[in-house]
């Protein structure tokens, strides 16, 4: 059972071996560390950049302009705020040149709370990212999706942001979330996790790595249900799934949808589900004001108003400057399972 970070690592390996990835770079991505979350251990084309986010994304754009296929990383999305204009420039390159220059690059960055990262290691980036046209934005919630979305991101001729929910990076795959053919947990670790200490002579032994492309723009129903639609992505997906499973004992049947791709998002998938249940909750952990879920909510109201049986709801992070370090502050900052359950229950019981 691969963890998400192992899945990303295997996908980067596929990228450099079969999909033309030329560079995997960023702060600490090269040897000896292989990424602060170990995501690039054993990747041959990985290298350490200067500690310079603008330089990282700028260099990635330059590489892509010259025909390379880079995957770069901003070590934490909290540090991507000083590259917004370069993200805008990269996202606009194809459009502003009237289709002359496309940028086949991937920018990966860990996002969200859940590891007690305090003020500058817990931000979410989805609302900001979705406000920058020209980027495709993916955010997996399990190892298999992480693997498949990364392959698709690499293969895509456009700039793709790969938002990695950091709280899930080391979570093990649940049954049904494996990469086909992957070795068991111990064997896989022995093959691709770099040893502690001297790594200078270590090389990974990669397992079979299938061409598992999870298409960009396709949502996934992770739990079918008839009463309420719950739309989430990233770290919120397993929380919503747990809440839904628990509510089932009360006879409330929640359908949980993992959006997987934020841009371009799978509206048809959402429309079908919301039309069927008449009730919807959007969940994410970015701050609630001008939140991406608000956009989905607005579209729901505009297009599905007469099919709704209850006011659509959004659960999101508190609109405060950061995520606090103390446990109570951390949990108060972003949606928790009890809150999700509570709103789902309200929605299910709401009578028009």
């Amino acid at each position: 059972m691969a963890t998400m970070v192992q899945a990303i690592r295997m996908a980067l390996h596929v990228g450099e071996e079969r999909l033309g990835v030329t560079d995997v770079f960023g702060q600490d991505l090269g040897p000896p560390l292989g990424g602060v979350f170990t995501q690039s251990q054993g990747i041959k084309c990985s290298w350490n950049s200067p500690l310079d986010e603008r330089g990282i994304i700028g260099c990635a754009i330059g590489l892509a302009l010259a025909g390379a296929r880079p995957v770069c990383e901003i070590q934490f999305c909290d540090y991507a705020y000083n590259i917004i204009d370069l993200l805008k420039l990269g996202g606009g390159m194809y459009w502003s040149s009237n289709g002359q220059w496309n940028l086949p690059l991937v920018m990966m960055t860990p996002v969200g709370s859940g590891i007690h990262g305090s003020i500058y290691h817990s931000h979410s980036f989805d609302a900001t990212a979705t406000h920058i046209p020209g980027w495709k934005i993916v955010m997996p919630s399990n190892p298999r999706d992480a693997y498949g979305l990364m392959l698709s991101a690499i293969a895509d001729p456009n700039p793709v942001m790969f938002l990695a929910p950091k709280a899930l990076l080391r979570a093990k795959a649940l049954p049904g979330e494996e990469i086909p053919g992957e070795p068991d947990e111990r064997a896989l670790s022995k093959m691709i996790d770099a040893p502690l200490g001297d790594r200078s002579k270590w090389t990974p032994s990669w397992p079979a790595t299938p061409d598992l492309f999870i298409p960009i723009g396709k949502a996934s129903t992770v739990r079918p249900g008839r009463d309420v639609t719950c739309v989430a992505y990233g770290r919120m997906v397993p929380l919503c799934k747990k809440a839904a499973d628990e509510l089932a004992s009360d006879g409330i049947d929640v359908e949980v949808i993992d959006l997987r791709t934020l841009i371009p998002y799978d509206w048809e998938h959402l429309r079908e589900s919301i039309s069927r249940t008449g009730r919807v909750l959007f969940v994410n952990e970015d701050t609630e004001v001008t939140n991406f879920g608000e956009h989905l909510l607005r579209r729901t109201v505009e297009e599905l108003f007469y099919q709704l049986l209850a006011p659509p709801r959004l659960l999101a992070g508190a609109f405060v400057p950061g995520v606090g370090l103390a446990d109570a502050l951390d949990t108060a900052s972003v949606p928790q399972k009890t809150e999700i359950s509570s709103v789902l229950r309200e929605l299910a019981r709401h009578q028009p």
Partner: protein
Amino acid sequence: MSTTPIQEHFYPDTKLSPDVLIRLHELMLRSRLLEERLIRMQKQGDGYFWIGGPGEEAFNVALGLLVDKGRGPAHDYLHLHYRSSATMVAMGIDPADAMRQMKNTATDPYSGGRNFVNHYSIPEWNVVPVSSPIEVQFSMAPGTALVQKRFGGRGITIVQGGDAGTAEGDFASCLIWATRPGMELPVLMIVTNNEFGISTPAAEQHGEKRIADRGKAFGMQTAVVDGNDPETAYLGIKQAMDYVRSERRPFLLEAKVSRLYGHSSSSGANFVTGESDCLAKFEKRLEERGILSRQKMDELRVQETQALLEMSKRVRTEPQPKGPTIYDHVFAPTEVGGEAKARQDAMCAVANPAAINNKEQS
């Protein structure tokens, strides 16, 4: 790797051949007249905004003549700014295309009417899209240079910005990324110093005497040239380029230039007296040396002016882009199609627990 010692001031007494001087003059004149035509177009309502580089022709034409023009890493990559029009003229653009961008027509080959004038984009010549935010090109230049470093050959990356923009972190990024020990990059960093940042004089902006000196802290070869003298500029650029091409290491070149029509149409785009006019000075020198007569230069001016006027009349009749085309080119078409798409869909079905559930239920 050996490094070639560089004189800080280039070939002050070296003379270029008359043929090169005549070519320089012709292109400088065309560039100037094009910019003046663009300004006129803007003032006549044939465009919303003008920004460009009249006053920089001596340096920029020389640069354009020295570029190794082509597509891909074997040739030079250009990360220019919106004052680089003379470089483009020297490289051989059709001046009508600059007018098309000014008039934001559908026929504008650089942006289809989406971007300001002098924001060039020519994949066939490695001219990457010019951006309005200043200095961001200095962040991108290491990327193209890295590809060229790996590729080998003599292709280099040329990145150009103004003096005020060197206050941006992107300039520091380029200095750092281009000079990492053992990973030096073939980048020619050019600062065209007109001593203004929109309305702010250089003296109020930065304290260093020579911007080029900032490269010294990084072990870079540096130089300052008189960018208003096409001969000095030509030879200076050539020497810097030769160094970057052969040594595969960066060079920081500062060119002192004039700004003859202010910052942009936002500051009026009127001729500024008191600035040194590189074209007027060059024409005087050519006349004194007996290379071109005043009459010949006047005739050329009339001829070029007329040609540009005719072009602008023609461009005026060309169509504007249609509103719904804003949705074109947001994303490049994905390469996944046909068999690969079918395979991808099949993979997705396998990867989708809902699909598995549905199968199990049926």
